[in-house]
């Protein structure tokens, strides 16, 4: 991430982002090996024989056709997972044994880092060089973290109110359905799969239809590492068919979803009207970044820009609302715009690129339409606002000022490189503005003042608060939403516990020397 923020020595002249389609990448994209559903340890075509296209967002062209999983395929996958849970070795292995297999899987993923990074880059338009050094090592790291937790799942011995001996067993919850998004195909995969594996669960995972490639590759490596058949099933497909089948399945014990708030609502509804399976949802955000007068303006501008442009703004914790205190506002605005103009948009395989194309046509058009809305609502377009080039889905880093809190560009999740800049006077006003959102996923604070930092961090209704940093994720750091950003936490031991059931065991005890 530092490479992103250090990439531009600020105010040199070279202005607008160099337009679009760049010369062919030096890295040769490997052939796509896995395009079918991964069920019960085998790659199989969908029962209907149907396929869908996955598209290269750099060009809009088809990369490959993928088997399209639908309800009947989900059923087969759930049966395999059910069998693997009810009668298979995985939940009956000790945590140590599961850990050994997971450790091996992590090693295999690292060995194949370049290939899998290329899959995410062509499938999602993510920066190849960053995926290779950030996302893929993070996948291996998360798997190792949870492998290390697999033999540390402790229940407790309890204080009973009478002469009883009581304790809790932390049991794997069963068959888990995971539905993951397209913006971080690899890290989201790891965030869901590794804790549930460590817990001893079996699972059916549906990757986003935009980005099915890396999940299938991971499944292949999982088999190589020794994860038993049926434990991890990957079924690519669409939300209304495959996703809906998962969330309403009577034999799935838990659904974990990351994606939009609208879809999250549909999933929870389906879970409620089927078997009341517990659901965890990591949904949208409109995360505020609060910059106070005592901040280092230059660093704060770097942070704000990174906060909105990292992964082309396709990140649920993007700092899409930046509140700046009036004393430094003008200077901040000037620097931010300069830096945005120096930001390099280009082919994600070009190491100079800081921003690739949006994931698909839908997103691309949605973002451009929000930019129009911003203008119509009366916000001032400081820079950007247009597509880059005429091929693929590249969009200029876009900054609006004079944004009012109730404007749609300040309320809705745009999921693109569009930043809403606002001015505040007092700490109270900043807190109020920051909380004026239906979302509550993340927040950033930039200040040197300890009281400001402490007060604001408790006042903001969000699942993670970064003080003088942003995107500081870690395997041991749970994160997830307040309000309509969802509930449940990914990462950390919280991320493990949501895949465990708590069972209390109570038995009478006679003549105990203590109670």
């Amino acid at each position, binding site marked *: 991430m530092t490479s992103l923020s250090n990439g531009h020595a600020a105010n040199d002249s070279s202005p607008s982002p160099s337009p679009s389609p760049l010369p062919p990448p030096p890295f040769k994209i490997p052939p796509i090996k896995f395009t079918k559903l991964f069920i019960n340890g085998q790659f199989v075509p969908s029962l209907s024989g149907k396929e869908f296209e996955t598209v290269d967002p750099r060009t809009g062209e088809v990369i490959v056709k993928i088997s399209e999983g639908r309800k009947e395929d989900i059923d087969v996958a759930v049966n395999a997972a059910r069998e693997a849970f009810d009668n298979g070795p995985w939940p009956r292995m000790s945590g140590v044994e599961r850990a050994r297999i997971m450790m091996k899987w992590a090693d295999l993923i690292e060995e194949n880092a370049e290939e899998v990074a290329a899959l995410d880059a062509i499938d999602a338009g993510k920066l190849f060089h960053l995926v290779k050094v950030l996302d893929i090592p993070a996948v291996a790291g998360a798997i190792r973290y949870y492998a*290390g937790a697999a033999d*540390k799942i402790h229940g407790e011995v309890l204080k009973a109110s009478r002469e009883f001996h009581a304790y809790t067993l932390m049991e794997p919850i069963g068959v888990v359905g995971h539905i993951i998004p397209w913006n971080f195909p690899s890290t989201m995969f790891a965030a869901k799969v590794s804790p549930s594996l460590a817990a001893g669960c079996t699972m059916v995972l549906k990757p986003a239809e935009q980005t099915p490639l890396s999940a299938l590759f991971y499944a292949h490596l999982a088999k190589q590492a020794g994860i038993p058949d049926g434990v991890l099933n990957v079924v690519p497909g669409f939300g209304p068919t495959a996703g809906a089948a998962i969330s309403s399945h009577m034999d799935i014990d838990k659904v974990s979803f990351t994606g939009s708030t609208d879809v999250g609502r549909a999933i929870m509804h389906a879970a409620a009207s089927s078997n009341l399976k517990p659901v965890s949802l990591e949904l949208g955000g409109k995360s505020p970044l609060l910059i106070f007068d005592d901040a280092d303006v230059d660093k704060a501008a770097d942070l704000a820009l990174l906060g909105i442009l990292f992964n082309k703004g396709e990140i649920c914790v993007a700092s899409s609302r930046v509140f700046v205190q009036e004393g430094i506002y003008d200077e901040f605005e000037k620097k931010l715009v300069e830096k945005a103009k120096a930001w390099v948009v280009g082919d994600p395989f070009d190491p100079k690129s800081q921003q690739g194309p949006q994931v698909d046509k839908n997103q691309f058009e949605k973002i451009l339409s929000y930019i129009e809305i911003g203008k119509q609502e009366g916000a001032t377009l400081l820079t950007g606002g247009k597509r880059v080039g005429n091929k693929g889905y590249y969009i200029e880093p876009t900054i609006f000022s004079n944004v009012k809190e109730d404007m749609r560009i300040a309320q809705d999740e745009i999921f693109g490189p569009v930043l809403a800049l606002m001015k505040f006077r007092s700490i109270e006003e900043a807190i109020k503005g920051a909380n004026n959102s239906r979302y509550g996923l993340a927040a950033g604070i930039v200040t040197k003042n300890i009281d400001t930092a402490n007060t604001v961090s408790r006042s903001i209704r969000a699942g993670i608060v970064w003080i003088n940093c942003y995107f500081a994720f870690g395997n041991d750091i749970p994160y997830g939403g307040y309000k309509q950003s969802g509930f449940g936490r990914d990462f950390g031991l919280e991320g493990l516990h949501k895949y465990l059931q708590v069972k209390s065991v109570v038995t009478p005890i006679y003549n105990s020397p*203590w109670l």
Partner: protein
Amino acid sequence: MAARRLSWLLSRSLSAASGPDSLLHSLGRNSGGGIRKWKRFSTAAAVDEVIIPQVQIPYTQHLIDGKFVDSASGKTFPTYDPRTGEVIAQVAEGDAEDINRAVVAARKAFDEGPWPKMTAYERCRILLRFADLVEKHRSELAALETWDNGKPYQQSFNDELPMFVRLFHYYAGWADKIHGMTVPADGKYHVQTLHEPIGVAGQIIPWNFPLLMFAWKVGPALACGNTIVLKTAEQTPLTALYVAKLLHEAGLPPGVVNIVSGYGPTAGAALASHMDVDKLAFTGSTETGKIVLELAARSNLKPVTLELGGKSPFIVFDDADVDQAVEAAHFALFFNQGQCCCAGSRTFVHERIYDEFLENSKKRALKRVVGDPFKSGVEQGPQIDTEQFDKVLRYIRSGIESNATLECGGQRLGSKGFFIQPTVFSNVKDEMLIAQDEIFGPVQSILKFKDTEEVIRRANATRYGLAAGVFTKNVHTANTMMRALRVGTVWINCFDVFDAAIPFGGYKMSGTGREKGIYSLNNYLQIKAVVEPLKNPAWI
């Protein structure tokens, strides 16, 4: 069958592949591959020809600040082969000056880094790489361990080396999960606890499980970010030097782990009383534990964890499966030549099954295969050294003199080395010395009891409180016993199950603190409370 069962027991209790299931459960399962088909040697088989282990002794100097160095004095001491009493190698003999140099290196590595300043994930990766290296060197290490200690090679190779690796995997997984807390305050304060590494840890380990004791001590200390000066037992200095070298190959910075070989009264005392050592961990005898604690108190008040002696009861109720109980009780006492601090050295048997139990125990002991520990099928090697050998024989004489019934054994075996016959006493009374003192040898004492209350009272009537075994099918008996026994570990229908996650340590004069498990991390962490006032907090 008994031999097969024992081997299975053994692999259950110490192998990395085994789960946390109880012994009872595990006995029902297929033991899979790797089980040795032992012939029934009689105990009369002594050591005729000594098998020469196929291993070099690469390291005999102290390992200080990442380098192998001689003692400041230039002195060396011999380490012996307990099969013969002959010298294996001359080893650098550490004294106060060597300890001091090691502490200076550890202090620098702690104060200046990089070790405590690395991310936990980086420390985790180094420990994982180390575990992989140990796996690669498994046969050399197992051979060296057996050569220096006398324990059966099969036990070293099949059980202890995998367990060592397992322990380091376990602690690697802890490194990035050491959590402080945010703490509620009565007023407008933000309160948190930081769990910080304690600093330079001094560790003194015994000779009965040189590698495993290394892992119990070094694993948690490193996972928490400490640096270490470790003194090995003078009887078994070799394997610690070998693995410490591998730790450095795995990427451990110099000065983080320093190994000094030497004796207790010199090197050990210097470590225990060093003013710049922040923490001391000792495993060994209760007698030495007292001295260590005194030295810590008189010097800089460093906190001390002690894992000391035991006289652990093994209690068999009349509803127990007698065959299983006999085998488990035999294993509980004779495992590792009886040189286990938690050995089940007081076997209490309910009067209704006493005769049958005694008869079978005697038969089992007579079948125990004693011989060259490098020989396949040998269950019991020599005692560690002449001092222990003499002490065990002295206690056997004391048992006979106090009118316990010697059922079998009682003699040395052969004329060379420190071999002792598996020995069983019956009609043992609570007040006899063999029922009171830790013998630390292959001497089983069988005692009779009538009812639960009586056996609880007698089992607890000891200055020790390390472990206990309970064999019963009755859940009420099990529930009552588990709470009534004043010991750090209760094994119900199993014994010596030593998983990485299961804490181990003593009540009473068996010591203080717990090793292994999440509890072991507490030994190597300081807890710092941080309090800050809050202005206009949204909630408290």
